[in-house]
């Protein structure tokens, strides 16, 4: 065996030189493979980082496990809650919504205000103080501000904020800036996206806030920590039982807490993204390696025969070529590693800004890198396997004879077309495609996939437009939504109609409910509407407005699916407000909405069930656009308003957030699919040039110009690219719908909207990328050595 050593080392040296000779193809493969692996590592790394960061933040801040809101419960009840088996800690709080009068904002902003103990740090949901100090007990107007809101307004300790707290104007002084695990993600009521300018969080001393809201000696919000192994369902039931008579709206676990729920949704979406794009790229990389391997084995055939004639065994030859293929994948894997690590950090930082974490833990898992390497090399091995098997099975004598000219056949087309219909270069193109149908199909599929990725990414913008159009212009046609702190008599709504510019007012009544069907149960808000709503009304699947049924319930299709009910089924509705009736209502109609879940009934039916005089939780308003400013200015003076949502700002915030987060992803996708096209086309062009260099040189000798020869080389790729466009559009359509399905959350389902414009832009981008990469290879035609090519046998 010792004698074989130097020969093996020569083989390895050959491997190194072969790789160098193949560097252009190795580059193309590295580009595609590296992109796929980078996205994989980036996404998995970002998921891991978000999960780690979230876990660490929750842990350090003692984030609660169970949350419950109640109308007014005596403080003494806290001790009873603490005795529930499985409960480790209890923290009662006062929680309210305040309206803010902010300089530079015409309409009122709003904030959630949560109490904090004045003499010690919160036992649960502790805050991270970023600036300033904690509020002092003797200064009831001192507050802590959430960092996002403070940053959006440039507020610092010592600044003041004008607020309406429970109907009373106050000037609050900013003592400090803080972050909380409870508000990693903050959403204004009724909005879809965070809006840090108009919506914030603040914390106030418990006594001060209790005094302002009339909750001295009482609480309206409680958070609980559970001990390890506690029975969560049992605790929830026990908390509900304890709070029921005080107006509890139903305890819920951490996973249903708004901020955490959003965070989880975001991580899940990232997980979907983590696999879709890399799968496409890795498939294409495998195919590129397959083509390159086949070509290499064809070129190497005499050498393989020679090696075997020298006495190298099949295993050695096989291992040599497999090693070569794996080495071809190596730069791609390295590119994926470094690119993925860098992109992962970048995207995690982006998320950390979007969400509010006090710190960021980015420790990419070694396992992710090993996984990526395994997938990369696996794709290479899969692509190379057939070619290597061919190398192994070649008999030495057979291998050393140069390959016979490839046999072509006259196709149906060339037999039937009168001679001269197609010129000979075109004939060469067509015959070449037909001679290697599998390879042609793979090239077309590769280009089609990159076109599909483009369709997928470019359709997001029109999809968002469709979503906004449906949500804010078809379903909710009101210009403003005003929410009261608590249900108010209908005449308050009539008062609203006297505000400047108000064209129409429509009251709504919303109550927290628990919907139960069989063993399935959901906490939702039930909205009661007038008999014939004109402004906000649910739409059916065909987009037709639905009136709430005189008797019974209307649910969104998503909610109906979650409860596994359909029209005719009876749902138990436990109302968590007023006299807390339990109703058994049939599902009468299903509404289709892209955003949120919803349950509706008629106002008069709910009033009757609650046994109350007509009241409203808020109102929808149509406002004259010309008098919009006057209208919003007056809103700040209305007492007992919890929040005002203006359509224009909600749409703006949605677009801004989307522009920030999604356009980055779109940019990514567009770049990567450009690389994909470039990689596939330049690889194919290079292979074609290598295989057909002799043919092309012959044509140059015959007097064909560079342009004419380029036509033959690139005409085939152009044809395959053209064939890829409709295929790519079709795959893109399927991908877009699949992604919309997979990425849909309970909060929103972005519809797939693949417009002709989307397909057109995607096709244009693919054509440009293909043309650029084709031409970059075509430049080499100028360098064809006519003499050398013709003097040697293939």
């Amino acid at each position: 065996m010792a004698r074989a050593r130097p020969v093996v080392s020569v083989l390895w040296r050959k491997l190194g030189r072969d790789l160098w000779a193949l560097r252009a193809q190795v580059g193309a493969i590295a580009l595609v493979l590296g992109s796929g692996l980078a996205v994989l590592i980036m996404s998995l790394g970002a998921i891991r980082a978000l999960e780690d960061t979230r876990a660490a933040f929750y842990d350090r801040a003692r984030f609660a496990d169970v949350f419950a809101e109640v109308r007014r419960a005596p403080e003494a009840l806290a001790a009873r809650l603490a005795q529930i088996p499985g409960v480790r800690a209890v923290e009662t709080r006062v929680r309210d919504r305040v309206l803010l009068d902010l300089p530079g904002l015409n309409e009122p902003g709003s904030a959630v205000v949560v109490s904090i103990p004045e003499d010690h740090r919160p036992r649960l949901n502790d805050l991270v103080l970023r600036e300033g100090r904690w509020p002092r007990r003797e200064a009831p107007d001192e507050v802590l501000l959430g960092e996002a809101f403070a940053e959006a307004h440039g507020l610092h300790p010592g600044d003041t904020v004008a607020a309406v707290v429970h109907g009373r104007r106050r000037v609050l002084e900013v003592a400090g800036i803080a972050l909380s695990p409870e508000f990693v993600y903050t959403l204004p009521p009724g909005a879809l996206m965070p809006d840090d300018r108009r919506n914030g969080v603040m914390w106030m001393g418990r006594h001060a806030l209790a005094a302002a809201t009339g909750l001295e000696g009482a609480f309206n919000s409680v958070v609980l920590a559970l001990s390890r192994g506690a029975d969560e369902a049992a605790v929830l039931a026990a908390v509900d039982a304890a709070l029921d008579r005080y107006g509890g709206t139903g305890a819920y676990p951490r996973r249903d807490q708004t901020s955490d729920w959003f965070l989880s949704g975001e991580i899940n979406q990232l997980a979907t993204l983590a696999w879709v794009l890399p799968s496409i790229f890795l498939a294409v990389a495998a195919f590129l390696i397959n083509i390159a391997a086949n070509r290499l084995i064809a070129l190497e055939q005499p050498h393989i025969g020679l090696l075997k004639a020298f006495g190298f065994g099949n295993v050695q030859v096989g291992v040599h070529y497999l090693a070569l293929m794996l080495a071809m994948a190596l730069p791609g894997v390295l590119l994926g590693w470094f690119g993925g690590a860098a992109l992962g950090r970048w995207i995690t930082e982006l998320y950390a800004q979007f969400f509010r974490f006090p710190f960021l833990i980015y420790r990419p898992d070694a396992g992710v890198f090993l996984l990526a390497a395994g997938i990369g090399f696996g794709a290479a091995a899969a692509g190379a396997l057939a070619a290597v098997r061919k190398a192994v099975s070649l008999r030495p004598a057979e291998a050393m004879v140069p390959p016979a000219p490839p046999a072509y056949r006259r196709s149906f087309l060339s037999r039937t077309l009168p001679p001269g219909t197609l010129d000979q270069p075109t004939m060469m193109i067509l015959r070449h495609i037909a001679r290697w149908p599998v390879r042609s199909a793979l090239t077309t599929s590769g280009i089609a996939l990159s076109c599909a990725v483009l369709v997928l990414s470019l359709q997001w913008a029109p999809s968002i437009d469709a979503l906004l159009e449906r949500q804010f212009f078809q379903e909710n046609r009101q210009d403003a939504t005003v929410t009261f702190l608590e249900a108010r008599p209908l005449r308050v709504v009539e008062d609203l109609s006297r505000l400047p510019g108000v064209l129409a007012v429509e009251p709504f009544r919303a109550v927290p409910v628990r919907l139960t069907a069989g063993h399935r149960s959901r906490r939702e808000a039930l909205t009661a509407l007038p008999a014939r709503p004109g402004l906000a009304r649910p739409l059916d699947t065909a987009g037709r407005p639905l009136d709430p049924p005189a008797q019974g319930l209307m649910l969104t299709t998503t909610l109906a699916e979650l409860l596994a009910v359909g029209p005719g089924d009876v749902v138990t509705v436990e109302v968590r407000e007023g006299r807390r009736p339990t109703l058994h209502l049939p599902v009468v109609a299903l509404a289709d909405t892209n955003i949120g879940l919803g349950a509706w009934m008629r106002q008069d039916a709910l009033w009757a069930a609650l046994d109350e005089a007509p009241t409203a939780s808020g109102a929808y308003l149509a406002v004259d656009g010309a008098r919009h400013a006057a209208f919003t200015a007056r809103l700040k003076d209305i007492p007992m308003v919890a929040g005002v949502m203006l359509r224009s700002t909600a749409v703006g915030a949605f677009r801004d957030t989307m522009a920030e987060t999604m356009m980055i992803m779109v940019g990514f996708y567009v770049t990567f699919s450009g690389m994909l096209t470039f990689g596939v086309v330049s690889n194919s062009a290079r292979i074609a040039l290598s295989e057909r260099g002799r043919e092309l040189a012959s044509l140059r000798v015959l007097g064909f110009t560079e342009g004419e020869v380029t036509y033959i080389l690139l005409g085939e790729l152009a044809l395959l690219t053209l064939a890829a466009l409709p295929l790519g559009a079709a795959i893109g359509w399927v991908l877009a719908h699949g992604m919309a399905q997979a990425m849909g959350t309970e909060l929103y389902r972005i519809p797939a909207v693949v417009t002709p414009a989307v397909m057109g832009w995607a096709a244009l981008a693919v054509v440009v990328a293909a043309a650029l990469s084709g031409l970059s290879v075509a430049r080499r035609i100028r360098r064809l050595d006519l003499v050398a090519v013709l003097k040697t046998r293939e």
Partner: protein
Amino acid sequence: MPVPPIMLSARNLSKIYRSGEVEIAALRGVDLDLFDGEMVALLGPSGSGKSTLLNILGGLDRATTGTVTFRGQDISAAGERTLTAYRRDHVGFVFQFYNLIPSLTARENVSLVTEIAADPMTAEDALALVGLEARLDHFPAQLSGGEQQRVAIARAIAKRPDILLCDEPTGALDSRTGIRVLEAIAQVNRELGTTTALITHNAGMAAMADRVAYFADGAIVRVEANPTRTAPSDLEW
């Protein structure tokens, strides 16, 4: 007998290849005239500069120094575009390895040239001239070596070139097939009057030419005229 006009003239041609540090002189000061309609054999051992000269005469390569004039026009300083046009309009090549396009039939390989030439004969006529009228629709893979080479000759002469340059056209063929190919070349020279230069290192083959240029070490050592041309079928192989 009047001297026919000069078709192609080489003066003091030299060609130096640089490969790394080493300079190789492939041609050293070659002078040669090709007259209208004549057949010249270039005879000499491998590496003596025959192919280099042929490639320069055919516009495939450029000389390091010296001039080439085609019908009085200097082509030695011409650009790529001019050389392409020169090859396209005036020169036919035949190589040892036929260099046919495998994806095109015999007829289509010839049509490749007739489609871009100014005054071509038909592909069928060209193939008939080399005795392949029965093999029009065969692909290269379906033809023997001799047949493939005759397709290559048909492809070279179909545009009615002024000069036919043949670089060891029978190098890859057995004698019987080789003679058939030489007959085709002789027939083209005779019937179309195409000036023909034929590279060979087979001294016997030189007897079919009007003149023989002997090469050694990158130079023409002597040029001899054959008093009579021997028919290819009578050549000593």
